């Protein structure tokens, strides 16, 4: 019968006793410049891969969860609106602007087979849940220019195929006032022009905006789809005011604190795990450090992504 004692490998004074299964294991790597370079490179790759996986692979799952919640909430709003429309004095209008993050509409683009719940606001946190209505622009289905920004690639990239739209394609928006049909008039890729894309227009139109580049930090080139409303717009309701942080291409600077906390935790956990792997049995170390690393890597990735433009 043989035993294995953790942490005794580097102690030359003690006779090393190993298990039969580890008899053939190669020796530990000697620390040196090569090891250091490889380590730095390995952690960089790990960080980038984790970031990409969280947003591109798990992001759609997270976004779908948010969309389901938003859809349930919006259906409740519609039920109430429908009840009010049948009430003694007719349909309801909202007393004030919608809260940021609240579901305000369902957007349907038949050609793209796209059906998304639109939320109020277009900060990075909001577009992670779904396309966001740009505050300061008209209400959806209402007079003037109503704008929506959505992500190109992160969190499912609901607007990934926006460049596939062409003049004449139909876009449908359902709000608590009713269903509005827009017809695409133009689809262009050009430098984003806040005045033209989010400004007031004499005609009643819908503007869909997303990034034109796969690079998540890109914030200048935009794919812009404009569509004209068919029929009469619904009565205007109070809207939120314009805010620089809510234009769809700005990151959330408030995420720095979360990032520092989560990434700092991740670095600490990684260092701890490295030490423990050197001293403890690998399985025990994994059980203890694996979940911590997973959680902190995910949190750090989510926080980092919030710093990137909201349409990425």
């Amino acid at each position: 019968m043989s035993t294995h004692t953790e942490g005794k490998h580097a102690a030359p004074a003690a006779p090393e006793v190993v298990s039969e299964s580890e008899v053939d294991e190669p020796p530990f790597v000697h620390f040196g410049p090569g090891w250091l370079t490889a380590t730095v490179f390995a952690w960089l790759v790990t960080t980038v891969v984790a970031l990409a996986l969280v947003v591109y692979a798990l992001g759609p799952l997270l976004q779908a969860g948010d969309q389901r919640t938003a859809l349930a909430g919006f259906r409740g709003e519609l039920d109430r609106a429908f009840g009010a429309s049948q009430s003694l004095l007719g349909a309801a209008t909202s007393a004030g602007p919608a809260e940021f993050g609240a579901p305000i509409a369902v957007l349907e683009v038949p050609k793209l087979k796209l059906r998304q719940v639109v939320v109020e606001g277009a900060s990075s946190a909001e577009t992670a849940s779904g396309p966001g209505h740009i505050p300061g622009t008209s209400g959806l289905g209402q007079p003037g220019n109503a704008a929506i920004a959505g992500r190109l690639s992160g969190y499912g990239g609901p607007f990934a195929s926006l460049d596939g739209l062409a003049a004449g394609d139909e876009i449908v928006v359902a709000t608590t006032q009713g269903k509005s049909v827009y017809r695409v008039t133009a689809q262009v890729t050009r430098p984003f022009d806040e005045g033209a894309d989010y400004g007031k227009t004499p005609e009643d139109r819908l503007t869909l905006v997303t990034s034109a580049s796969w690079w998540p930090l890109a914030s200048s080139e935009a794919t812009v789809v404009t569509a004209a409303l068919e029929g009469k717009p619904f009565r205007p309701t109070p809207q939120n005011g314009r805010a620089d942080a809510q234009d769809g291409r700005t990151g959330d600077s408030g995420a720095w604190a979360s990032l520092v906390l989560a990434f700092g935790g991740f670095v600490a956990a990684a260092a701890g795990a490295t030490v423990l792997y050197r001293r403890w049995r690998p399985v025990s170390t994994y059980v203890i450090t694996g979940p911590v690393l997973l959680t902190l890597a995910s949190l750090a990735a989510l926080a980092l992504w919030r710093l990137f433009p909201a349409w990425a």
Partner: protein
Amino acid sequence: MFFVPLRRLAVVLACALLAVLGVAGVPAATAQENPPAPPPYTLTTIPADLTSVQNGDPLRVTIAGLPAGATATMRLCPKNLRDSLLQLNGVSPTGELLWGPDHSLLSRVRQYCAEEFSDELTGQRSIAQLANRQRSATSGNIVFDLTVPKGSSRPAYVSYDPSYTSFDKDDVYFPWADNPVVSPGPPQLRSRLYSYSCDENNPCSLALEITSADGTGSFVTWADNSRTFTPVAPGLAVKGCAGLGPSTLTASMPERFGRTTVDWNQLLCAPTGATQPANIVSETEDSALKSFDTGASDVAITGSGSALATQTVRDRQYVPVGLNATVLAATGWSPTDRNDSGTPLISQVKDSFAMTFDELAKMLSHGGVNPDADGRAGIFHDGSPFVTRNATLGKIVSVNGNEGLNAVVRAGGSDSNNGFYGVTGEAGKGSVPLTLGASLVKSAPGSWVFPDLKAVYGDLAGKSPGVITELGNLDPTGNSQHNTDAKVGQLAVRKLVDSVMVGTGALCESGCLNWVVTDLATARAYGWTPVSLPNAAGKFVAPTESSLQAASASMKEGPDGTLLPGTATDPNAYSMTFAEYLVAPVNPLIDATCKPLQGKQDQLKTFLAMTRAGGQGKLAPGLAPLTPTLLEEALARVAKIGTGTAEKACRQKEEAQNPTPPGATGGAGTGAPGLAAPATPVTPVTNNVPAATSGVPEKTAAPSPASVLAAKNLADSVRIPSFPGAGVLGALIPLLALIILATLPSATAYLTAGRPVPPWLVRALAAVGSLFSRGRGASA
């Protein structure tokens, strides 16, 4: 084999027999084909004109002039009732069945109108369908108390209509059958089921099957479908006018004043077809006052001056326009009548119950759960002063004879599964709860106290609810004891109590009740019966025009010049009276650039003049006209409207829209001390006004039930998959990502630690590499 056709023949004959069983069941009844010439009855309805009734409107159908023992059954039928029935006329000598047309109205009513009719308002089956009533021995009449139905019948087969029969054409006995099976196997589906609708596009009739003894003592059955009706969805519409115009005033008001404002509009614009003077925006009173203050509305209606206002920046006059009252109203049925055999007969509760302030206070503050125990403070128990004082109430008993449950039936609670315990009312801040609270604080201070249950009433346990501003204040914590189950909007309140109102279900056979805390105009509109309350001399006084006017004459005025609820002292006064005020601006009406709107100002002047003159005769039922004193007061206040300056209006509008934060000096005014809590955000409700056909055309569309329904249908059709993406790959990608995320950082840490790559992993990687190489070699 011989017995098979014989059995089928027997089935056919049995079906035919069943079809006329109703007639056969009545002793010595004669058939409809041979009715006595002049019907011996008179049929009346309230309202008499049924051409423009709304779904849910109270409807009374009375059949008078019939002798004792008469009965009647009501069915809802299409106005143009189908006439395609066949009947069996006999059997030919060769054994062939002889079929012929059956044009009898009675047969058609029975066969085409026999299925349940679903009412849109209540979401339940309509009481009007297959309602049976007996002649009252006391009045000599057969009375149907109903609500106007709107909806459609349950699709069903009609046995003897070839197009809708469930018989097979192949069957030798029904060669006329023409409703083929399209989906064999149980249950069989055929190409057609018969159904009909009653709505604005499909007029219907109240088809009555009346059975009574004729002059010879024989029982005769008549079918009468002479009363037709065209039900429309409930709502308010200004008729005969040209929609909104540039001078149309925006008027914010509680729902209770909507009917009056519609009539006032029509009074001014219908004779000439002009544009509508006032666009009705329905809001709770605190929101209406806020809208007025900020300039979103030109005028507002409130019943309690500035008590519910969260800010009073805009100079205003409170012009009295009518008198109203807070009431506790009962709706339901009581077995107070008797039929000709002496058996109790339920009829709608129309007697005004007499209730003391202590009973009212306890009923609304001591919890609504378990009224058979200590819920509602036990006021509904057998032998309680309240039940003893009101004979009609005492007659309402549990259907199964369980005396312990009598209190439950009287207190209401038939829908406890849905969290309704018998008392409801409109949610949101308003003069109705405020008047209730102000009266009970003064008249029943010892009873207007929450039980000392900390878990239920929180910090208010053992304390008075005080002058409440909304019914929700009576259940201050999430652990509600259902003192009131308030609902948003009158429609929701009606839906809640209509299940009892229609009197369906076994629970209502021996009577049943629900209670509503509301205002008198609303109670009158829906046929709810207000209770009488004591006056200063202890005499019970019902809310009537005279008792409301008596109250107004003795009420005190508050600092804002409005009558203070709960201060009436006149012996003939109904104590919970309040005055309805139109809030109008002292300064001129202005546009967005602060320019005076002369057209609107003239419209306001005309409108205000109307409210004092012709408008007093057009108040909705339940609202009492102003007394001469209040009319003089109104005249004096109207004279001050529009006397200010546009500059001041502009400045106040800016200030009201950007109020000084609480605590800062020079901030906006507040409501009455101790009353006004911060405003609860509510959703204003605008009426669906048709676009103007003259004046400025409407550039926007108002949301309508159809438009919202279209949006709702789209939202309902959306499905968000749990795993976005195509099929299995959609689920595999996140799973793979999770695996990598779970292993990659740990693997990196493992390698960073200088650990050697495990031999098994080396071997596994080598194997994979080998496989890969072999695969490439083979393909090459």
